[in-house]
């Protein structure tokens, strides 16, 4: 259902969507009627394809009513049908949010949040947005920066060896704006054959959250952030890059008056 709500986003990005389960056609038809599903729900009653693709959940014994269910996962295929991204749920109870995948991969849009900037890139793609289009005095907003690093590539965490540039997100100073500590995933150790240097790196999707508190009513503002990184694979390193994003936020007066 959550996916259904995002379908316009997928269509806008010209992405075909298919969902596969072991449910019968009747069950899927009923589900479609109830929730207005507009994309193919494929029925693998008997779990033949689920087995063939190595997707049978081992959570349920053969005599269990739920035996035959698929292990939840999401695949992104490119235009040639090659799997370019694969997300396996951490636990079978977890339901991957389709929105998160779409946003990470295709820069999908949601109307709920505020100003947004998407910077596509072959190795590193950025999507930055504010979680609200407006602020009030003393209100805390969040700046979210999703950094999507292509498979086979990484960016460096701190500490870095001499000559490398660590990944960072900094918010430009603004009168009345207090910038809280950046929350980002911990980088993990990484080594390259033939190099003595020890690295810590980020790979995949890096979600960074920066709390922003507006202490004054300073009118409509533009928050500027800089994302700095150096992208490398095991065989090549690109020049360090700094990308700037500007996100606007409108001020609401503290007490809304009836007109």
């Amino acid at each position, binding site marked *: 259902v959550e996916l259904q709500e995002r379908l316009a986003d997928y269509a806008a990005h010209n992405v075909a969507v298919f969902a*596969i389960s072991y449910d019968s056609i009747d*069950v899927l038809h009923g589900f479609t009627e109830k929730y207005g599903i507009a994309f193919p729900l494929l029925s693998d009653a008997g779990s033949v394809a689920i087995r063939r693709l190595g997707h049978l959940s081992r959570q349920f014994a053969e005599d269990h009513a739920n035996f035959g269910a*698929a292990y*939840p996962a999401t695949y992104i295929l490119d235009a040639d049908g*090659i*799997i370019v991204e694969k997300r396996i749920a951490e636990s079978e109870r977890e339901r991957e949010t389709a929105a998160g995948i779409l946003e990470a991969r295709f820069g999908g849009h949601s109307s709920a949040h505020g100003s947004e900037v998407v910077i596509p890139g072959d190795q590193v793609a950025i999507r930055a947005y504010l979680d609200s289009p407006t602020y009030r005095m003393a209100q805390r907003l969040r700046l979210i920066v999703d950094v999507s690093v292509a498979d086979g590539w990484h960016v460096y965490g701190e500490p870095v060896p001499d000559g490398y540039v660590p990944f960072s997100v900094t918010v430009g100073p603004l009168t009345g704006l207090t910038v809280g500590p950046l929350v980002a995933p911990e980088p993990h150790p990484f080594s390259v054959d033939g190099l003595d240097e020890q690295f810590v790196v980020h790979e995949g999707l890096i979600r960074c959250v920066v709390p922003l508190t507006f202490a004054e009513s300073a009118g409509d503002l533009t928050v500027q952030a800089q994302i700095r990184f150096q992208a490398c694979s095991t065989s090549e390193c690109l020049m360090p890059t700094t990308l700037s994003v500007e996100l606007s936020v409108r001020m609401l007066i503290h007490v809304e008056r009836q007109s």
Partner: protein
Amino acid sequence: VTTPSDDTQASHERIGPAIGERFPDVVLPDQYGAQIDVHAARGQRPALIIFYRSARW
């Protein structure tokens, strides 16, 4: 019984086709009973393919 942390990494490697492979051919009926060939139906579009447990539970 295994904990998620024991199980996660190893089992993820074994579940489903791998990144870099062509997604296997899959032909299954949709909710209206029409046979859908995933690759034919997507044409030249990229695709999102979701395996989920069930629409019932």
